[in-house]
């Protein structure tokens, strides 16, 4: 009964998200090398993203919605990557070229 009422997985996932966000702050407050900073950011970001996918977006769910889920993620990746690399293209690589 308690299990039904209290969504333990989601609460743990939420706490984990907060911890990961706090961990990423190390980049600002600890005096680390650039490479170490990037590693911290990449690792926390990847764990964070998979946490969201598995806990809150139900990527492991039944087979009949698989197609929609993956299409959705593909579209999201497309928009995200286009925004990031497009911005870099405009302001860094292509600036006054």
């Amino acid at each position, binding site marked *: 009964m308690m299990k039904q009422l209290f969504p333990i997985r989601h609460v743990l996932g939420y706490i984990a998200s907060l911890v990961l966000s706090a961990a990423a702050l190390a980049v600002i407050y600890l005096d680390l090398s650039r490479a170490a900073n990037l590693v911290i950011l990449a690792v926390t970001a990847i764990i964070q993203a998979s946490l969201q996918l598995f806990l809150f977006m139900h990527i492991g769910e039944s087979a009949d919605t698989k197609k929609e889920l993956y299409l959705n993620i593909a579209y999201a990746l497309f928009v995200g990557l286009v*925004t990031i690399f497009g911005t870099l293209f405009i302001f860094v690589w292509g600036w*006054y070229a």
Partner: protein
Amino acid sequence: MDLEKFKVHGGVLIYGAMVSIALATLAIIIGLTVFKKWGYLWREWLTTVDHKRIGVMYILAALLMLFRGGIDALMMRLQTAAPEMKFLDAQHYNEVFTTHGLIMILFMAMPFIIGLMNVIVPLQIGARDVAFPRLNAVSFWLFFFGAMLLNISFVIGGSPDAGWSAYFPLASIEFSPTVGNNYYSLALQISGIGTMLTGVNFIVTILKMRAPGMKLMRMPMFTWSVLITNVIIVFAFPVLTIALALMMFDRLFGSQFFTMANGGMDMLWANLFWVWGHPEVYIVILPAFGIYSDIISTFSKKNLYGYTSMVASMVIISLLSFLVWAHHFYTMGQGVMVNSFFSITTMAIAVPTGVKIFNWLFTLRKGRITFTTPMLYTLAFIPIFTIGGVTGVMLAMASADYQYHNTMFLVAHFHYVLIPGAVFAVIAGFHYWFPKVFGFRLNERLGKHAFWWIIISFNVAFFPLFILGLMGMTRRMYTYSAETGFGPLNMVSFAGALGLAIGFVILVYNIYWSTRYMPRDTTGDPWDARTLEWATNSPIPAYNFAVVPTVTDRDAFWVSKQENIPLFKDQIKKIHMPSNTGKPFILGVIFFFFGFFMVFSMWVPAIVSGVGILITLCAMSFDRDHGFYIPEKEIIATEKKLRGETV
């Protein structure tokens, strides 16, 4: 407390606006009390979760905003009608063009389209409601109170004045010290959350709630366009959310994201704004394409030509819409390589759009065309939109754009795409679906009067702007000298604006006249139409369909009429419905106060209302409400009343 910051100094016009707002509010309160309508308003409208009523409220709000934005437009056209006009001062003019843009795009076009999709999409796919009826109410109230928050800026504290695109550094606290752009960041944020929830809601509704047999490739084109639109909403609006949040931090908490010092980057705002802003254009225009597709096929008595290519071109447009944003700032300083890339992607969008235009033309070919009011708007759309599209390709050429950039040529171009593309479409859809919602048609003669006023005046108002732009008149200039020679054409444009106003007044008069005098439609299908929404009664009963339809083909209702295949095969059974709730409305009210206190940096009340938002959200999450059932007897009685003996 310092009351000075709430005041707006703008002379007679502002005080007039204040008085009229106060009087209108008073009139509404007195009216509701005298006619004892408070309970009715609360029970039937403010707490409703019925997709049709929410849709009607969206459309009502959109019509109101159309008039607010239209009055802004008239004031601008009057101010520029002749050289050296003294009607508005520079600051007031800046506020007027900023709110005109914001209101017309975000609080007129968007809610009008969302309203139509609310009313029609569940009916077109044979569903009883949207997937999340309560969330739908939350969406509406967040939109509504966001819009109200922006509207009160006019009389309390001052409106945003840095253009609807609010470019930094102009929109920063340094160069726009009034609270105007605080309103911008908070009002848009609140209504933007509502829009995003709508996106989720409709994707789920269309993917999961279709009637048996309604495969994706059998869906009416309007539903297809709404599906794709909502996919764009879900992926584009988060960018706006982030950009607005960063803007709010810059303006309220002294962060430096978009400033020119301390590592900030002002151009990043323009970049993020248009990463959202260009898909936004397609968010308002794709549903319009869907509306036109349904109307053309109904009034040509033919199925839509090239159904599959219509769907494919919309999917391609949705992807390309994310690849073109830099064409809004060709002159910002990026290199030739970047501009060439975005030129090519921009021109590429003309290809799928052209496919759609030809599909419509082929649908018309050899059709039995009836010239009803919605059809007239649709037919007018094709050539006018094509002018807008062709001038768009001219603007897409980066090197030529250095000449056109921020001139009236651009203003003319986007009015030539947005007005036929979005406004004519929603008016056409409004006339087309009106009998479904209210049970009677709008008068055709008045409708056509309004149509001719609007179409002719539109061209009179906006065509001169192309020429003015080529003569060198820039946008957003509040006055000019007689020597520039801009005077006569601006006067013509003002005359066109007046004509447009007359057209819209006739349109509204038509609603009033038709409500009183038009005969009631008892068939539920006054246009002899093709899609499922016409298979149920008008006005639509709360449960939409007494029996869920079984779909065997595209244009399901048409096929069932032609070949006598019954749509409704099952017996009438009791129907499960969601119950009304006041929480979404309350959430909207609290959000409104939260936004207001944030705008004026009143932290304590802001925190209190922020906590209030969290409490309301919790209350909504833990609300155990399993809805209710409409018993069989009641359904049969309703059906008999609406449809006579045919049940």
